[in-house]
C-alpha cells in the first residue's frame, strides 16, 4: 500500500480502527487526545463497531477497561502522564488479573511543574506494574506495535503498553504504510477471554480477598507469566512477519556488531542517534547504537549477548529515578551485564520535559565514551543538556 502522511496519533488511531476493539473507555489528556480525536471520528463515521465510553477520569477509564475485559471484550485505551498516574491503582489490577488489553501511552513529563512535553517518567513509573512495554521510534513503528501488541497481550494474557514520544512522534507527521484491513483482522482473529464474567453458566469470582495464605503464590505465578511472555514475544513476532512482512524485534542493532562503544536508547531519540552513527562511521569510528524496543519483559539475556565484549556503553534515560543509581534503563542494563564481561558503562539522563536532544549532543556522548576506552569513567551518571 502507498504511504500516507500521518501523525503518530493518527497512526495509532488507524491501528485501533483496524483492530476494531469491542470497548474503548477513554479520557482526554494532552498529548494523547489526538488519538481519541481520530478514533472518535471513526466511531462517529460508523467505520468501527466498538463502543467508545467517555468516562469522567482516567481512573474510571482503566476501571471500565478492566470490567469490559473481564466480561470478555477486546479492550483498548490511551493516556499520557498524569492520566496514567491517576490510573495506576487499576493498572496494577489489570495485570494482576492477567487481563489482556492494549494501551497507547503518549509519553509526557509528570507534574509538578506542569509540562506537556515528552519524557518517559510516566510509563517508567509503571515498570513494576506487570504490564508489557514497547517503545516506538517513529510513526510506522507506533502503528505496527499497536497491532502486534494487541495480539501479544492476548497470547501472553497480560496487558500491553505501547509507548510513543509525546509531540515528537504523536504530533509529528511522517509517511506511514498501513496494512490491509482484512489482514489485520485475520492476524488478530477472535478474542476469547479466559473465565469471562458473562459466561453465566460457569460463574467465577474475580479479585477476591487473598491474604498471607495464597497471595504470594499468585504473585509468583504472575511473575512466571511475565517471564514466559518473552518466548511468546518471539512467536507473535514470527507470525507478524509472516503476515505483514515487517520485523518486530526485541531490539534493533545499528552497527553494533563490530563497535567498541555503543549507545543504548529508546524511542524517537534513536532516529537522531542513527544519523550520528552514520556520520561518525564515515570517519571510521567504531561506534554503534542499540535501540531497545521491548522494555518489559526485560530482555536481560539477549542484551547480555549483544553487549558482551563492548568496551564502553552509554545508556540514555529520558527519565529521572530520584535517589537511585542512575535511570531505570541504566540500572537494568548494568545489572544484566554484571555476570559477564563487565564493560565500562555510564548513564546520561536527558530530554526531561521535552528538552531538545540533537545530533551534536549525541555526538558529544560518543566523543566522551570513546575516551573511556582508555581512561576511567569519572561520573557514572550525568545530565545531558541541563543548566547546572
Amino acid at each position, binding site marked *: 500500500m502507498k*504511504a*500516507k*502522511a500521518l501523525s503518530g496519533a493518527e497512526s495509532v488511531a488507524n491501528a485501533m480502527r483496524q483492530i476494531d476493539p469491542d470497548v474503548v473507555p477513554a479520557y482526554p489528556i494532552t498529548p494523547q487526545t489526538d488519538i481519541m480525536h481520530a478514533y472518535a471520528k471513526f466511531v462517529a463515521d460508523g467505520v468501527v463497531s466498538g463502543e467508545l465510553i467517555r468516562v469522567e477520569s482516567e481512573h474510571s477509564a482503566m476501571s471500565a477497561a478492566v470490567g469490559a475485559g473481564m466480561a470478555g471484550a477486546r479492550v483498548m485505551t490511551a493516556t499520557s502522564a498524569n492520566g496514567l498516574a491517576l490510573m495506576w491503582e487499576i493498572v496494577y489490577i489489570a495485570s494482576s488479573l492477567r487481563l489482556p488489553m492494549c494501551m497507547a501511552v503518549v509519553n509526557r513529563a509528570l507534574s509538578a511543574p506542569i509540562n*506537556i*512535553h515528552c519524557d518517559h517518567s510516566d510509563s517508567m513509573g509503571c515498570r513494576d506494574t506487570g504490564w508489557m512495554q514497547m517503545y516506538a*521510534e*517513529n510513526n510506522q513503528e507506533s502503528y505496527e506495535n499497536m497491532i502486534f501488541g494487541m495480539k501479544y497481550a492476548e497470547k501472553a494474557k497480560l496487558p500491553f503498553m505501547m509507548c510513543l*514520544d509525546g*509531540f*515528537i*512522534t504523536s*504530533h*509529528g*507527521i*511522517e*509517511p506511514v504504510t498501513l496494512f490491509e484491513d482484512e489482514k489485520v483482522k485475520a492476524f488478530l482473529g477472535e478474542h476469547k477471554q479466559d473465565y469471562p464474567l458473562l459466561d453465566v453458566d460457569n460463574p467465577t469470582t474475580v479479585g477476591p480477598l487473598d491474604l498471607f495464605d495464597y497471595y504470594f503464590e499468585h504473585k509468583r505465578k504472575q511473575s512466571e507469566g511475565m517471564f514466559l511472555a518473552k518466548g511468546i514475544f518471539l512467536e507473535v513476532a514470527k507470525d507478524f512477519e509472516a503476515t505483514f512482512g515487517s520485523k518486530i524485534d526485541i531490539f534493533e542493532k545499528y552497527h553494533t556488531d563490530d563497535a567498541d562503544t555503543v549507545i543504548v536508547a529508546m524511542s*524517537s*531519540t534513536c*532516529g*537522531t542517534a*542513527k*544519523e550520528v552513527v552514520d556520520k561518525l562511521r564515515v570517519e571510521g569510528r567504531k561506534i554503534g547504537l542499540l535501540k531497545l524496543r521491548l522494555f518489559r519483559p526485560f530482555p536481560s539475556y539477549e542484551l547480555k549477548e549483544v553487549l558482551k565484549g563492548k568496551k564502553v556503553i552509554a545508556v540514555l534515560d529520558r527519565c529521572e529515578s530520584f535517589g537511585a543509581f542512575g535511570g531505570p534503563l541504566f540500572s537494568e542494563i548494568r545489572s544484566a551485564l554484571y555476570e559477564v564481561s563487565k564493560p565500562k558503562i555510564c548513564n546520561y539522563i536527558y530530554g526531561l520535559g521535552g528538552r*531538545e*536532544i*540533537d*545530533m551534536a549532543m549525541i555526538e558529544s556522548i560518543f566523543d566522551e565514551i570513546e575516551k573511556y576506552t582508555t581512561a576511567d569513567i569519572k561520573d557514572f551518571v550525568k545530565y545531558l543538556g541541563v543548566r547546572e
Partner: protein
Amino acid sequence: MKEVTIIGRGGQGGKSAAAILAEAALENGHYIQSFSEYGAERQGAPVYAFCRIDEKPIRIHSSVTNPDVVAVIDPTLTAALPVTKGLSDEGILIVNTLETPQQIRDKLNFTKGKVFTVDATGISIDCFGRNIPNSPMLGAIEKAASLVTLEVLKNKISDKFLHKLGQEVVDKNVQAIERAFNEVKEG
C-alpha cells in the same frame, strides 16, 4: 534534505501549511516529516512549523535549526523574532509583506541568500474575503524554492478540502496559490 521553517502566529495556519507542503512532497515521491513547536497554544502567539523533504527516509527527530527556507506568514514577526537565524548563505527568505525584498534586506540586515516578498494578506482578502495567508504563502514558497510542483500542490489542496469544504473553497485556494506564485517578487 531540504528543511523549511514557517513562522506565523497561532490561527494563521502555519502548521497546516507545513503539513500540506509535506503531503505534497510525499505525493511527489519524497520522504517527508512535518511538525510544530508547541508552547502555550493561543491565537496570536508566534508558532514555528517545520517541514523536511528528502530522497531517503528521514530519521532525525530533533528540531530544525539550519533551515534552507524560512517563510514568515505574519509581517510583524520580522521585527519580533530572529527570523533569519540559522539560514545559510544560500538560504531563501519569503516574507508576507507589502514591502520590497530590498526593504526587508535592509530591515533585517540580511545580505546573503535570496529574499522574496509577497502580499499574501492582500491576496487572501481578495480570494477569501478574510486574512488566511497560509495558502498564498504556499504558492510563494513553491515559486521561491521549487520544493514540489505547482500542480502537485494544487492537487493536494483539492484532495484535502474538496470533500470537507467543497469546490468553491478549493477554487479560491488554488487561485490564491497561483496568484502568489505569479506575484511574488525576488530581490
